[in-house]
C-alpha cells in the first residue's frame, strides 16, 4: 500500500514511487538516492517530528520530517497497522 515515508515504521521497507514538491527539492532528494523505483528501508525516526533516517542504495540518509512527508513509498501491502 502507498504510504508517506513518515508513516512507515522503523524497519519497514518499500519502493519509492513518487516525490512531491518543487523541482529543486526533488533534485536534492534524488541526488541523495531518493529516486522513483529505488528500494528504501526506514531505520528510525526521532521523536517530536524529528528527522527520518533511511537506508537507500546501501547508504544512510537523514531527512527532515517535512521533506520526508513528500516521499511516497509503496510498501509490501501487508497492512500491519
Amino acid at each position, binding site marked *: 500500500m502507498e504510504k508517506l515515508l513518515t508513516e512507515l515504521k522503523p524497519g519497514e521497507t518499500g519502493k519509492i514511487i513518487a516525490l512531491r514538491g518543487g523541482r529543486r527539492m526533488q533534485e536534492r532528494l534524488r541526488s*541523495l538516492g531518493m529516486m522513483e523505483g529505488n528500494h528504501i528501508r526506514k531505520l*528510525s525516526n526521532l521523536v517530536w517530528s524529528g528527522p527520518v533516517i533511511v537506508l537507500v542504495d546501501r*547508504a544512510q540518509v*537523514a531527512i*527532515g*520530517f517535512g*521533506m520526508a512527508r513528500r516521499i511516497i513509498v509503496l510498501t509490501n501491502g501487508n497492512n500491519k497497522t
Partner: protein
Amino acid sequence: MKRPAAIDTTSKKILRKRTISDILLVGQPNVGKSVLFSRLTGVRTIASNYPGTTVTYTSGRMRFAQETYKVLDAPGTYSLEPLDESARAAVDLIDDAKRIINVVDATHLERHLPLTMELLAQKKVMVVALNMSDEARHKGIRIDAGKLSERLGVPVVPTAARSGEGIKELIHSLHSLPVPKEEEKDESSHPGHHPHIPDYSQRDIDRGHVHLNRDKIWQRVGEIVGEVQSLHHHHHTLSQRLGEMSVHPVWGSLFAVFVLALSFSLIRLIGEFLIGGGIGILGEPWLELPFGTEFLFEAVFKPLLKKLSLLLGEEGFLHKMLIGTLIDGDIDFMQSFGILTSGLFIPLAAVLPYIISFYLVLSLLEDSGYLPRLAVFLDNIMHRIGLHGYAIIPSLLGLGCNVPGVMATRILESRQQRFITATLISIAVPCAALQAMIIGLVGDHGPWAVIFIYGMLFITWLIIGLILRFTSRGFRPELLIEIPPYRIPSFRALISKMWMRILGFLREALPVVIAAVFIVNILYQLKAFEYMADFTAPVITSLWGMPKESIVPLLVGILRKDVAVGMFAPLELNIKQLITGCVVLSMFFPCIATFVVLFRELGLKYGLKSMAVMLIAVTLVGTALNFSLSLIIP
C-alpha cells in the same frame, strides 16, 4: 586561530577574480578530494569523514615529467546547480578549469555519475578517479573501470586516496590528457571526448533558458551502472551494524549523550595532564607527575628569567616590557605581564595543551563519521532556534576557534541560517584558547564555577537563537544529509591534521599575544587606560558590578581573548565578578580575526546587525548576572 595560510587566505573577492587552475578536483562532498589533493601535491589539507569539510579552495603544485601543474582542491557539490555557498565556490571554479579530475565514490557509483554526466555535457577535459576502491572491494562491489571508461569516453582510474593506491596511474592519465586550447572552447566535439555522449540539454519553454534534462541523465546513469557494476554477497559489517544502532531513537540518543560527555571529559583530562602532569576530572587530581607545561615554565624557565630580571635591575622600562611586574618579589607567570613571562606562558603553557587535547578529540569525532549522526540527534533543538541539525558542525568547530567555525557556515543553505549560526558562534561559543584560560583562572574556585559559566553561555546561545529565529525572516531549509559510513580514523591523517591545526595556532597566536602584551604595557605607561576606565565605568561598574579597570581586559579581548582573561588575574576579582567577567568577555566583541571573517562572510549589513545583537546581549546578560549573583552570593 585560523587554519594555515594555504587554506584560508582566500576571500570571495579572490574567488571572483577567476582562478585558473591547470587541474581542478571536482566531486560530491566526502568522496576524498582533499585526501587525493594532498597525495598529488604534498600540501596538507583538512580532510574529515563528513560532507562539507572543505568550504573554500586550496591550491598546490604537482610536478610530473618536467612539467608543473597547478592543482586546486575545491568544496564538494552534488550538481552544477549549487545548493549552498561552498558548492557555489566549486561551481565557479569549474567554469574556468582547464582540466578536471572528477572524483567519484566507487561504493555509490549511481549517486556520483550524474555529476560526471553534467561535466561531460559541458565538454570538460577530464579524468574520472574511481576513489574508495578499497572500500568497494571490501563491500563486494566490483566495477569494470575499462568498460566505464568506454561508456563515458574519458579515462577512468581506480584509486584509494587514503592508501595511495592508483595515484601514479591517475597522474599518468592526467599527463596524457589533451591540452585544451582557448579557441576551441566552443567547438561541439572536444578532442578528449567521444562523440557518442548524447546532448542532455533541454529548452525550458516556460522560462526560456536551457537546462539539463535530468531524467535522461539518471536513466543513462542507471544503464551504465547496470553494465559496469557487479555486486557480490557480503555480510553485514560491524561498521554497518554500529551505523544502524547509533541512529536508533533510544540507543542513539543515549549514545550521543555518552559521546558528548566522554569528549568533554577527555578534553579536560588530556588538557590538565599536559599542563600539570596530574590526572583527575573534577577537583583535585589523584596523580601528579613532575611533568607538564607548567612544570617546565616554573622549574626550568623561571630560574633563567630571574637571572635576567636581576640583570635588568628588577625595574625600569625594559624590565617592565620583558619581565613585567614582580609580584611579592617573584615572577608570576599569570600576573607579571611581560613579553617573556605572561606573553609566552599564556599561549604555550596555558592554552596550547588545551588546543592539543581539543583538536585530538575533535579529529577523532570528525574522522570516525560520528558528527553527522550527532547532527541528526540535535536537529530538534536546532529547529527551535531556526536552524537544522547540521549547524552543529560549524558550532563545534567554533569551540576550537571561531574563525573556521564562522567559515564553515558556508555549508548551510540559506542566508538566514548562516546569519544565525555565525552570530551565535561569535557571541556565545568560546574558543579553546578562551576556555583554557577560564578553566585555568576560575577552576581554582572549584569546578562548579566553570560549569556555571558554560551553562550561562549555553543559555545565552539558546535565548539569542530563539529571538533571532522569530525576528529574522527567510528561507528555512530542513535537514537533508548523507550519513557516511563509520571509518576507523587513520593515524597518519590524524597526526597530519593535528600538526596543521597546532602549527596554525602557534602562527596566529604567538605574534598577536606578544603584540598585545607589548601594546598594553605601553598604554599603561602612558596612563591611557585611566581616562577610558572613567568613561566606561557607568556600564562596567554600575551594571556589571566589575571594577572600572576591567575595561582594559575587555578591550584587549578584541585582540586575543586568552590574554584578556589573564588580565583579570591581578584585579583580585571575587567569584561573582569573575563569573560575570568571563561571561561578558566571551560575548563582548569577537577577537579581531573572527570579526574580519564574520564581516567577510555575512557582508556589511548583516555584520552590523550581528554586532548590534552582540551589544544588546552582552549588556543584558552582564547586568542580569551581576544582580542575580548578588542575590545568591552575598
